[in-house]
């Protein structure tokens, strides 16, 4: 089964209107910005976004109007603070009303973990006494049948699509990742469809040479997208550093709706794919983000 798709084909084929999509599961690194931008370009509708935090990607997507709901622990711009599109959507319904299911980083992890584990819920000692236990949120309180202590129950999440941004994968989707992975594995194991966006497509031999480096096994993967710099402006360990300026400028630009729309026209609708985006970004900028101080891992022996 051929799994290599262009970004455009993959989004066309595997993201349906109304889908719930977990992305940005590694927190501030390895955020699938290119994937998110393609969703906007294809004008998908009524999506639910799922993730712990997503830095400014969720804000960008909310502003485009393709999002119906967000289930997340934090929505904003990590180094700058609030996300203005999120505020406009929740406070004023601009461009449309967006519902937010408020989680914490831990409890969104637990929800995906329960989904991955195939159980309907998992108990926790977090959430107790907070505003998240009330309202239409699905958390329940329970007295532990063993210890009698209070527990909060977190029901499982099983998103339709998980987008995994990684350093390298083979054509079958066997995926190597290094660095802090956040809740990426749980996201992939809990989802119905897994899409891998990778800096490099490598031969399966490379995977086999270090199977402990594998984060996601290919048999769960529906599509592999070879998209270098697909995570920019978030960092990709071993490939490029974080482009802090992009977060600062987006924060300023998106303060007003008009500014956001100009940003959107330039960086999303103004380019047809990531290739054009990178041209717009410019070689000099890309060069400034490259890894300067290489730090190779030592090898280990898998022999017999």
């Amino acid at each position, binding site marked *: 089964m051929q799994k290599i798709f262009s970004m455009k084909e993959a989004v066309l084929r595997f993201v349906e209107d109304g889908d719930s999509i977990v992305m940005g599961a590694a927190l501030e690194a390895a955020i699938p910005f290119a994937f998110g931008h393609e969703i906007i370009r294809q004008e998908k509708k009524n999506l639910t976004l799922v993730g712990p935090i997503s830095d400014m990607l969720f804000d960008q997507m909310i502003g485009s109007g393709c999002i119906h709901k967000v289930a997340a622990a934090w929505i904003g711009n990590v180094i700058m603070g609030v996300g203005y599109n999120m505020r406009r959507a929740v406070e004023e319904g601009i461009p449309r009303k967006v519902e937010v299911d408020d989680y914490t980083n831990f409890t969104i992890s637990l929800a995906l973990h329960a989904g991955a584990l195939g159980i309907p819920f998992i108990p926790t000692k977090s959430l107790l*006494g907070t*505003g998240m236990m009330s309202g239409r949120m699905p958390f329940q309180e329970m007295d532990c049948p063993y210890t009698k202590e209070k527990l909060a129950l977190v029901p499982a999440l099983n998103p339709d699509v998980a987008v995994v941004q990684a350093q390298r994968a083979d054509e079958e989707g066997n995926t190597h990742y290094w660095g802090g992975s956040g809740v990426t594995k749980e996201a992939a194991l809990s989802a119905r469809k897994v899409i891998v966006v990778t800096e490099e497509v490598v031969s399966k031999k490379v995977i086999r040479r270090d199977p402990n480096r594998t984060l996601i096994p290919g048999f769960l993967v529906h599509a592999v997208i070879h998209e270098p710099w697909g995570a920019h402006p978030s960092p990709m360990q071993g490939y490029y550093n974080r482009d802090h300026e992009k977060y600062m400028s987006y924060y300023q630009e998106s303060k007003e709706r008009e500014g956001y729309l100009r940003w959107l026209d330039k960086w999303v609708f103004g380019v047809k794919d990531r290739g054009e985006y990178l041209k717009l970004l410019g070689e000099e900028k890309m060069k400034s983000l490259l890894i300067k101080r290489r730090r190779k891992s030592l090898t280990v022996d898998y022999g017999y």
Partner: protein
Amino acid sequence: MIECDRSGEPNLRAADYTMQELMVVAGAREIRDDDVVFVGMRLPLLAFQLAKATHAPHAIGIFENGILRDKPAGDALYTMGDTPNIEGAIWTTSMMDIMSLLQSGKVSLGFIGGAEVDRFGNLNTTYIGGKERVRIRLPGSGGGSDIASLAGRVIIMMSHERRRFVERVSYITSPGFGDGENWRERNGLKGGGPCAVITTKGILRFDSKTKEMVLDSVHPGVIVEEVLENTGWNLNYKSRIKETDPPTRLELRTIRRFDPTGFWTRNGMK
């Protein structure tokens, strides 16, 4: 008479450092050498780097994206996911592993910030105006609520303004002591709750019985009345308020090494 700092050099005057730098120093001083610290971002991250480089070389820092470090990163950090925070780490893993440490009681200290705090140290970082009548939608909990619920002790860092220091938060994102004595026990919370609030005006701690915030020290150049005016309830304060120790030159140099562009500490509070 010229007062001297702990390195023996003349004390820095308030003009020599920013309020953010003082807060970082105050945060760092709360970190003990044997602490396992849930670090977070922004000023706490700098506080951790500073503590490691000065009085707490054995402290361990954990980050919810799945990182455990025992030495400061080799370059300035804007987020915990930045590449220098991974290089040279002891453990890079998953959020579940990090949160397991937190929930199982292995994290002795955590830092959080907030938009609104109340007299019992409850934080709101989600809905200003409450969930039903949202005036401002803020980013939300992130890991803050987890840390507030589960860490051994918790330090809150925030800007001291009357609109932020409110009698009662309209929404609890990160639980402090709820409505006071025994509230945490009644709600089954494991962690010890907040132990200090480091603000732009001073340092506040909590009464061991009533769990109410008490002003403990004011920063150099700040008078008690200014703190009271910027607090939305009748704040208790000790009869003899200390002055927060200013940064030493070493501390300041160290902070500036970790924040070379001054993004976090010299361009004003984010």
